[in-house]
């Protein structure tokens, strides 16, 4: 995966973007972090977070003009969060405000700061910390500029004293009563200062600007022209900011501080001969890209302190902090158990995938994460930037397979099952008997054939009766497991074989029984006319209902994730249910935002734990019986105890059978069902006799062993191979205490062990296990 692709994918995830409060704040105070600190009762952390961005936290916590309110998400519901009140609470409730501050060694450059207000002092502190020699020229006899205009209740003077104590720790000299201007009465001229100092920051406030005559280029209104980003004036050594630039009507304490910081940054760059303009995006206020869903948030007005002069009490501060939404996106994580499982979010995951692919030597920690995704694409549907983690994981799997780095155990079983479905035991391709051409061909798919072979048989019969011109049949797997496993070559080969069979039948229109086959054919074969049985049934009518008085059911429809964008198909499901007399309940996540059943992307083979979480979350969404139109979805839900119908269960009812309550067949039975479907159809439809299987030994497997085999993904066919091997070669062990035999055999890549005993009419299987480490002897 190229770095460019990674960067583009990363950018789509907004989770790491600043929340609206911090983005609005011109110095990006971590207001969300301060709220979190208050919630934890850790005021010191709150103070430090404020101090990280402003040099004078005790002052700012009292008089900040709170631009953070501008993009507070709470405003969409009620009122913005009272951040300043929480900052003040943190300051007032930290016993000892010890502020961490790093200072660099001194440098051989001098900077003049003209004006000792907060903007100038901020620039002084920022540059002082970097080791520059700072000289402040203040026109009056005290520092702070117009902060003294605030009442002592609003801004206790001790706060000023405590904050300004910081100045004494830095290489800063202060000259009081030292007005600067190019006028006769000025004790110092700007031109002289420019000659003596390496850089100058002009922050003289908004009084009497015109009378000062600094000799800098001004606009027609008489305001000094400056570069908005760098704060440089027409004199490359002179920078300007604060109320001088904001003007008397637009004064903003926090913006003045921001100007001081930005000018300090520019001066530092100037003095180091660095670019003044490079990498300065997002300095100052900007509109955040962070998305935060506010659906369902209850209105609650801002907490007012009982005694405004004293500020919030602990209870009040906590109440206000709890109003904060702690803005974040996580829209995809909220709906996806897979994304939630790894405790991160796509921006981080994308980077982990990229790093995983870059590892030459060492452990590939993200393998598990890459292979667990069900590739269902729900994340893309709910993401404000439409990032699809499935596409990233699918691409990563392709690359892993290509480099021989895909762990073989992950998809091996599913791929062997697919190869079974595309072996002669199941594969079939024929015209309808009595026809030499086909007007259509039915492709029921491997899983519907495995789960409900009887429905496939009935459906094929119905299609033959309803459609003129001959309905051919193709049995096989569409290849999607190979696609999901990243096995591009195997997928292409499978598609090629399907295409060959289809062409041999004269390339008729294809009717699919499985929504996933439908989506694969639609995507991979643009020249193929393909329709699902559902739109077809809706169009041509349902098979005659035998029963006249069917009990209407209330069913929650689970849409299939592979056809989330197939609106017509989804409508046909609802329409068929109505025709059958049943009621439809829509799940919250349906249609284009439907969820996966746990089978997609071979999730349940790669990570059963997450697949079970996915299934359990889905089946808990409604207490009604579920209705699916994919065999895997039905079996996955039913296997976890959720009553679920496949739509064909309702169309081809079987008298006296509760199909919704039945678990799906196990892996072995699924293969046997496919094989039997083929032989049954050959016999019943085409009148062909089929040879019996050669190695057919009678196995008696108690239920607990069958369950164990299912869990360990060991097929009856593999167990039979082991026993045949043990009996034919005599290579077996005997447990003399239990009077059982133990043999092993490695058909392809997995070594299977079976403990069994002999009975007159066959073999009893007592245990089975497997491993991949090969016994070399």
């Amino acid at each position, binding site marked *: 995966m190229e770095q460019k692709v990674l960067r583009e994918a990363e950018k789509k995830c907004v989770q790491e973007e600043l929340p609206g409060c911090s983005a609005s704040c011109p110095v990006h105070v971590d207001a969300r972090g301060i709220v979190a600190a208050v919630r934890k009762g850790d005021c010191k952390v709150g103070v430090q977070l404020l101090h990280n961005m402003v040099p004078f936290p005790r002052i700012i916590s009292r008089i900040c003009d709170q631009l953070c309110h501008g993009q507070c998400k709470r405003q969409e519901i009620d009122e913005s969060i009272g951040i300043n009140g929480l900052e003040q609470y943190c300051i007032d409730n930290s016993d000892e405000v010890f502020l961490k501050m790093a200072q660099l060694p001194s440098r051989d450059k001098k900077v003049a700061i003209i004006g000792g207000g907060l903007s100038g002092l901020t620039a002084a502190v920022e540059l002082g910390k970097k080791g520059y020699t700072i000289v402040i020229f203040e026109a009056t006899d005290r520092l702070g500029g117009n902060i003294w205009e605030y009442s002592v209740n609003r801004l206790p003077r001790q706060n000023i004293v405590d904050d300004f104590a910081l100045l004494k720790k830095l290489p800063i000299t202060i000259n009081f009563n030292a007005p600067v201007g190019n006028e006769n009465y000025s004790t110092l001229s700007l031109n002289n200062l420019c000659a003596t100092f390496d850089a100058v920051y002009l922050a003289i406030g908004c009084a009497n600007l015109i009378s000062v005559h600094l000799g800098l280029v001004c606009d027609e209104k008489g305001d000094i022209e400056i570069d908005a980003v760098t704060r440089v004036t027409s004199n490359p050594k002179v920078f300007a900011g604060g109320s001088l630039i904001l003007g008397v009507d637009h004064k903003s304490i926090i913006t003045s501080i921001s100007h001081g910081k930005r000018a300090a940054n520019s001066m530092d760059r100037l003095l180091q001969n660095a670019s003044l303009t490079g990498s300065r995006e997002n300095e100052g206020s900007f509109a955040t890209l962070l998305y935060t869903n506010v659906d369902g948030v209850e209105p609650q007005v801002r907490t007012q302190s009982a005694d405004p002069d004293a500020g919030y009490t602990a209870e009040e501060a906590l109440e206000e902090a709890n109003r904060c939404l702690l803005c974040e996106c996580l829209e995809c994580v909220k709906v996806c158990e897979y994304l939630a499982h790894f405790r991160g979010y796509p921006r981080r995951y994308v980077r982990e995938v990229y790093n995983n692919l870059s590892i030459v030597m*060492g*452990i*590939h*920690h993200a*393998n*598990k994460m890459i292979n667990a995704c069900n590739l269902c694409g729900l994340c893309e549907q709910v993401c404000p930037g439409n990032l699809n983690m499935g596409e990233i994981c699918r691409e990563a799997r392709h690359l892993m397979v290509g480099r021989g780095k895909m*762990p*073989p*155990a*992950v998809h091996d079983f599913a791929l062997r099952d697919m190869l079974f479905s595309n072996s002669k035991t199941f594969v079939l391709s024929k015209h309808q008997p009595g026809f030499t051409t086909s007007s259509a061909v039915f492709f029921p798919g491997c899983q519907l054939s495995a789960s409900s072979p009887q429905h496939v048989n009935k459906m094929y019969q119905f299609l033959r009766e309803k459609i003129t011109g001959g309905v051919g049949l193709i049995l096989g797997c569409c290849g999607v497991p190979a696609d999901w496993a990243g096995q591009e070559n195997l997928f292409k080969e499978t598609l090629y074989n399907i295409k060959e069979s289809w062409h041999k039948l004269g390339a008729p229109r294809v009717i699919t029984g499985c929504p996933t086959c439908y989506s694969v054919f639609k995507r991979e074969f643009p020249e193929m006319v393909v329709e699902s049985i559902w739109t077809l049934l809706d169009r041509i009518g349902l098979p005659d209902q035998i029963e006249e008085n069917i009990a209407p059911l209330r069913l929650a429809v689970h849409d299939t994730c592979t056809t989330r964008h197939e609106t017509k198909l989804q409508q046909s499901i609802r329409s068929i249910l109505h025709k059958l007399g049943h009621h439809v309940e829509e799940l919250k996540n349906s249609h284009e935002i439907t969820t996966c059943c746990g089978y997609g992307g071979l999730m349940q083979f790669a990570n059963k734990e997450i697949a079970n979480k996915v299934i359990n979350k889905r089946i808990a969404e409604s207490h009604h019986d579920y209705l699916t139109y994919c065999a895997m979805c039905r079996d996955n839900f039913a296997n976890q105890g959720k009553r679920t119908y496949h739509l064909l269960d309702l169309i081809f009812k079987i008298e006296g059978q509760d199909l919704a309550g039945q678990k799906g067949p196990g892996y072995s039975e699924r293969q046997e069902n496919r094989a039997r479907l083929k032989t049954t159809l050959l016999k019943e439809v085409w009148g062909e006799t089929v040879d019996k299987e050669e190695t057919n030994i009678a196995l008696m497997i108690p239920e607990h062993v069958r369950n164990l085999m299912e869990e360990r993904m060991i097929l009856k066919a593999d167990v039979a191979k082991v026993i045949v091997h043990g009996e034919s070669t*005599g*290579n*077996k*062990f*005997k*447990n*003399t*205490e*239990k009077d059982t*035999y*133990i043999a*092993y055999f490695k058909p392809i890549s997995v*070594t299977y*062990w079976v403990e069994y005993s002999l009975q007159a009419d066959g073999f009893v299987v007592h*245990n089975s*296990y*497997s*491993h*991949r*480490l*090969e*016994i*070399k*002897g």
Partner: protein
Amino acid sequence: MDKQVQDAIICNKCRIPLTLGKVTLSYLGSDFPVELYKCPQCSLVFIPEELAKGKMDQVEKALEDK
């Protein structure tokens, strides 16, 4: 398990108890010399369930992520 192997499991062909012996296991290009129970005569190797589902499974998973 070792005790059980020694006491109960015999090679059915050679009709003798198993003894510990050197065996090489291999996976994804790595070889591991280990000591396992096998038939001292015909060298048929016995791997108990606990080993297959325990240590061997761990080694497989570790090698697969390399």
